[in-house]
């Protein structure tokens, strides 16, 4: 189903002077109460160049990705005439989950990012997954915009498939701290990123939060990706390339999980992306009742802290940090 919709709050301030980019619903889901929720796509450009798809909000607890999509759209609104190609932005793939700030699609309690490629005859989340895949099919480059998991604070990072060297090379232009070439886990086949070879996943910050600087860094990264792909002129970028990060490229062997051995409250010892020496304390676990120290959690290697736990309650075995070794 496709239906043209005009949304005044997303239009130009003065539509008389510029064309309103096409805003369409790629699927509308009828709710039991009679309401309708739609997954929207905003298309910029109309030339014969490359088509890039930017997808945010597959999980409802990742507003950072939605903010990145907004920032990129703000730039493209004033750039569309010069855009060399098409950029399709899907600002929120899971509107009902975003509505209540939850990771999962409500009622069915399912993770949309475990349902791809979806089914046209399935339940609503299945049909949404299917509609998104159908709409994106044929795109030359797909970028998924995420926030971090709600329990962690994460440095800006790009995730690509471990053997996809071309995607890793491109992701190096995304203004991230790390490009992580990641082996697929057991659930990979049903994730969005797995459906389109070369997909780059950008994430950072904290779930259900907007972190100062992270959204700006990653939206700059997306624009720089568009410039690298030739859709945007380098001279037209609102920043100088020299100010962008030079990321560390790592594989799974260089990414180490650090776990608590005791249950209690985890108190982080510092921010994401600080350097730690082998044996250095990354945080402590204290007794939740008395506040007494139970454990000092230490880095297993000389490393950078890629993710640090924000949510303090931990069990034995809970991951409290992820560190990367150069």
């Amino acid at each position, binding site marked *: 189903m496709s239906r043209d919709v005009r949304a005044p709050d997303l239009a130009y301030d003065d539509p008389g002077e510029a064309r309103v980019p096409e805003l369409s619903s790629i699927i509308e889901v009828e*709710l*039991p109460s009679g309401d309708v929720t739609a997954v929207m796509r905003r298309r910029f450009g109309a030339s014969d160049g490359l088509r890039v798809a930017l997808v945010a909000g597959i999980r409802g607890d990742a507003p950072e990705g939605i903010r990145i999509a907004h920032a990129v759209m703000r730039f493209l609104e004033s750039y569309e005439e010069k855009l060399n190609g098409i950029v399709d932005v899907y600002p929120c793939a899971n509107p009902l989950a975003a509505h209540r700030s939850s990771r999962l699609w409500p009622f069915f309690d399912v993770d949309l990012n475990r349902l791809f490629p979806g089914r046209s005859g399935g339940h609503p989340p299945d049909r949404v997954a299917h509609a998104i895949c159908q709409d994106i099919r044929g795109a030359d480059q797909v970028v998924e915009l995420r926030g971090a998991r709600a329990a962690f604070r994460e440095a800006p990072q790009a995730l690509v498939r471990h053997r996809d060297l071309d995607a890793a090379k491109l992701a190096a232009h995304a203004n991230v701290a790390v490009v992580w070439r990641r082996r697929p886990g057991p659930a990979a086949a049903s994730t969005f990123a797995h459906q389109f070879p070369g997909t780059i996943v950008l994430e950072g910050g904290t779930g259900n939060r907007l972190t100062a600087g992270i959204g700006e860094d990653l939206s700059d990264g997306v624009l720089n990706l568009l410039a690298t792909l030739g859709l945007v002129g380098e001279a037209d970028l609102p920043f100088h390339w020299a100010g962008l990060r030079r990321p560390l490229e790592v594989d799974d062997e260089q990414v180490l999980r650090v776990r608590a051995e005791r249950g209690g409250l985890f108190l982080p010892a510092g921010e994401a992306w600080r350097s730690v020496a082998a044996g250095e304390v990354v945080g402590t676990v204290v007794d939740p009742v008395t506040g007494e120290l139970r454990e000092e959690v230490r880095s297993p290697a000389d490393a950078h802290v890629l993710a640090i736990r924000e949510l303090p309650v931990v069990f034995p*075995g809970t991951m409290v940090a992820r560190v990367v070794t150069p």
Partner: protein
Amino acid sequence: MSVVFRIEAPYRGAYELHRLTFGNGEGPTLAIVAGMHGNELNGMHAVNLLAGALRVVRPRGTVHLFPLVNTFGADEARKRWPFDDHDINKAFPGDPDGTVVDRIAQALLEASDADVCVDVHSGAPHVRELPQVRVPMSGDELALGRAMGLPVVWRRPGERLGGTGLIGAWRAAGRKALHVVAGRGITLDTGHSRTTADGLNRLMAHLGMGHAVGPPATIADVTRSEVETHRADHGGFFVPEVRVGVNVEPGHLLGYVQAPIGGDRLSEVRAQRSGVVMTVRAWPMVHAQELLVRVAGTDAG
């Protein structure tokens, strides 16, 4: 009763995985797991009914019962492990050095080492299921599932062979594994629990571990193509006109979808074949394409 796994919890008593073991140790070993999902109560009750019987008559062989795996979830009527909202049944084979859910899964898999294993679930909170065993299309597990004599035997290709669930992990470990579903999540249905406990008892009798309490109660033994599935044409308020276990003929009114505001009848759902109603939606608010009713055909062959 023994504690086969224990892990400290930050704000409450430690989590403990309990196992009840019965038998004389001379014969086959059977493991029965329930309550992996904390909001599925019928399995817990069925296993506890069986435990009551086994305290009176000691079985031949060994029976390991795990009446409630996800105690923390059950305390909150939640399917998943409450701390991180993970489904224990997606954490197998588990990891002794992993997250708490990984560790529970690994401990359960290890502690349920048996020749035959049964994982008992309820339906989701929004559907009620006639007690049924879901089995592969052929082989020993089909024979074992049929021996339970539950109202429905549902043969499904590739039934839970892979993935990260307990059934798949048991099978990967070379054990015979059965997947039982009865009633509805969140609620206790004592009749379905009793039916399930009787099926477990018949399975033990089939394995030579005891004596059956009654004849098989199987009404339908079906494949997917013999199950008639009705889904909603559109969103609305579903009103069932049947309950699970009712025999129906073609044309029988199974329920209808009406407008949630005003009550206009939008569509009717009618049986297309003879059979027994095996699934009925319990939560009336439905989206388009959602499951309303399943009828297990009794007119095949």
